[in-house]
């Protein structure tokens, strides 16, 4: 049992990450419906185990480049909930001063190089970050999060090939959530994602992205490749999204029963708890304390963000250049 080797604090942290994502985004969904969240918002609910399982192997000195569905990646990489809430509500104290919003949320101090509103935009950036890591030679690495949709973008292919050619310390974490916007992966992807990725010369393993332990274990098998100069690799984590492409998406392209079934059978948090309980991995009372703390943390963060002031009007013209 690989899971038995995972230290308790790693498991508690992973649970906290997943709980934060779920609680934060559930509240954001409600706020969006109430009209308090400007712009577009893409929620990660249902995919929490991917971000948690991948980032459990990373430190602040490793880099992640993310997608338009990036809140989960930011939280898993250590971004503060309060700064994120402020950013989503476009407030001046936001992690990006309210100038990035949901689709550009970033915490570079944590190595989180930004959500990315361009599908396929992140993989080329991740290989660039991996190039920095390679030249510094301190065993750090980069992760490119990419959805199934992004695997049909040439930019992702170019990045994969370049990573192999230059032997870069990068992992392509492909999250197959079933849909690229409103189009099903089965229609849009002409071949199996894992097989196609292997075609670039990348080792790639398909895992159940709703199972933290599967993602964690698969990562463990490949992460040392990057850290010891053996080159890039990939995982395909399958985890259907529960929400629409964006909040407000009526999801007419999906059978409502599909979503009900996901909630009942493929909830990453429930699956985590079941495993923890079955294998007696952690005292459940510890996780109950996490629940309580996260609920309070999210509630306080969002309440604070809602009443916080917008950016100062002078901010319109700042941060365009270092000097001009």
């Amino acid at each position, binding site marked *: 049992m690989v899971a038995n080797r995972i230290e308790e604090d790693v498991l508690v942290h992973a649970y906290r990450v997943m709980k934060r994502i779920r609680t934060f985004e559930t509240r954001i969904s409600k706020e969006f419906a109430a009209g308090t969240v400007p712009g577009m918002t893409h929620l990660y609910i249902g995919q929490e185990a991917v971000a948690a399982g991948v980032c459990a192997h990373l430190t602040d000195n490793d880099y992640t480049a993310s997608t338009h569905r990036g809140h989960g990646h930011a939280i898993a990489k250590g971004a503060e909930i309060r700064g994120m809430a402020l950013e989503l509500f476009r407030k001046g104290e936001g992690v990006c001063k309210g100038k990035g919003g949901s689709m550009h949320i970033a915490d570079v101090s944590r190595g989180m190089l930004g959500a990315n509103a361009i599908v396929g935009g992140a993989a080329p950036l991740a290989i660039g970050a991996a190039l920095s890591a390679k030249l510094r030679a301190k065993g750090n690495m980069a992760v490119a999060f990419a959805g199934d949709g992004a695997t049909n973008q040439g930019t992702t292919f170019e990045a994969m090939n370049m990573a192999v050619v230059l032997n870069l310390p990068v992992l392509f974490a492909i999250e197959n959530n079933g849909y690229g916007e409103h189009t099903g992966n089965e229609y849009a992807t002409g071949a199996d994602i894992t097989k196609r990725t292997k075609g670039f010369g990348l080792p790639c393993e398909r895992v159940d992205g709703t199972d933290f332990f599967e993602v964690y274990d698969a990562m463990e098998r490949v992460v040392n490749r990057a850290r010891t100069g053996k080159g890039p690799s990939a995982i395909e984590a399958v985890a259907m999204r529960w929400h629409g492409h964006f909040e407000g998406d009526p999801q007419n392209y999906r059978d409502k029963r599909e979503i009900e079934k996901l909630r009942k059978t493929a909830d990453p948090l429930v699956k985590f708890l079941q495993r923890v309980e079955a294998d007696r991995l952690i005292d459940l009372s510890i996780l109950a304390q996490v629940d309580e703390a996260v609920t309070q943390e999210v509630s306080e963060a969002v309440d604070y963000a809602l009443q916080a002031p917008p950016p100062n009007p002078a901010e319109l013209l700042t941060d365009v250049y*270092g000097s001009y």
Partner: protein
Amino acid sequence: MREITFRESLNEALRQEMELDDRVLLIGEDIAGGNGGTEGAAGSTGGILGVTKGLYLQFGADRVIDTPISESAIMGLAAGSALTGMRPVAELMFMDFFGVCFDQIYNQAAKFRYMFGGKASAPMVVRGMVGAGFGSAAQHSQALWPIFSHIPGLKVVFPSNPYDAKGLLIQAIRDEDPVVFLEHKTLYDTKGPVPEDSYTVPFGEANITRRGDDLTIVTLGRQVLFANAVADRLKHQVSIEVVDMRTTSPIDTETILESVRHTGRLLAVDEANPICSIASEIVSIAAIGAHGSLISPPRKLTAPHTPVPAAPNLEALYIPQEQDIERVVREMLGISQPVIA
């Protein structure tokens, strides 16, 4: 002072900055001789442009990185490494290839600082050839600087001579922002005085290459050479001031306006296509900022609104030439046109 070519001047700038700062690295197709770096003659050639000649042999494959023909991945390597502390200089060969990878430049690198609330930047340089004149036709000859100049977050540099090429490139490498560095393909073998020591030419400071009283020509890149030649040829009839913009983002509005206020006449010359050209911007700056000083309507001289043709005779017509500049100057000043034999 010793004279070296524009190409040698760029090479020297890269070499000196790489010696000074080990974060500076070069990325591009064949820049290390192909195949990830080739010893001997191939390794010293420096790819198609020859600008990186010898640098692979001096700095090795970690810092002079040969890549496949994958422009988006090249730009991603540059933007991502710049975002994480490196000082990459990417060579795109022909700037026309921006079309393949523009997302990484204008959606990503140019916007990091703003989108991330001032907490990140992409200090990178993208170099490449621009311009018509070699019969390279529509996809290898364009003048795309108006497009780059339009993007907030990017700086755009277009040197006209070897001295500026070295100083502007060193400034570009040290700059905190992403810089698009344009090299006109007809200028690589031009020679001029270049100091051996390292120096910078600041951005946003135009260079007055000819002093004059009767008419201002504002231009950039190769066209500066044409404008200078016209000013010299007509100097006994008319006194022309030539302003070399050096950078199109930022634009040295002050120098342009001072010159136009002094001469009262403006001719803006640009090899770019006319709509939203840099010439259009210059005319707009003058119309707004020097209206009361203008003796005659400002004029624009640009390429026509067409792709670059392949046939030499058509390409020659496409490019604003010395004689075109002279013709417009004569029209503006009421000097009779030379009789064509």
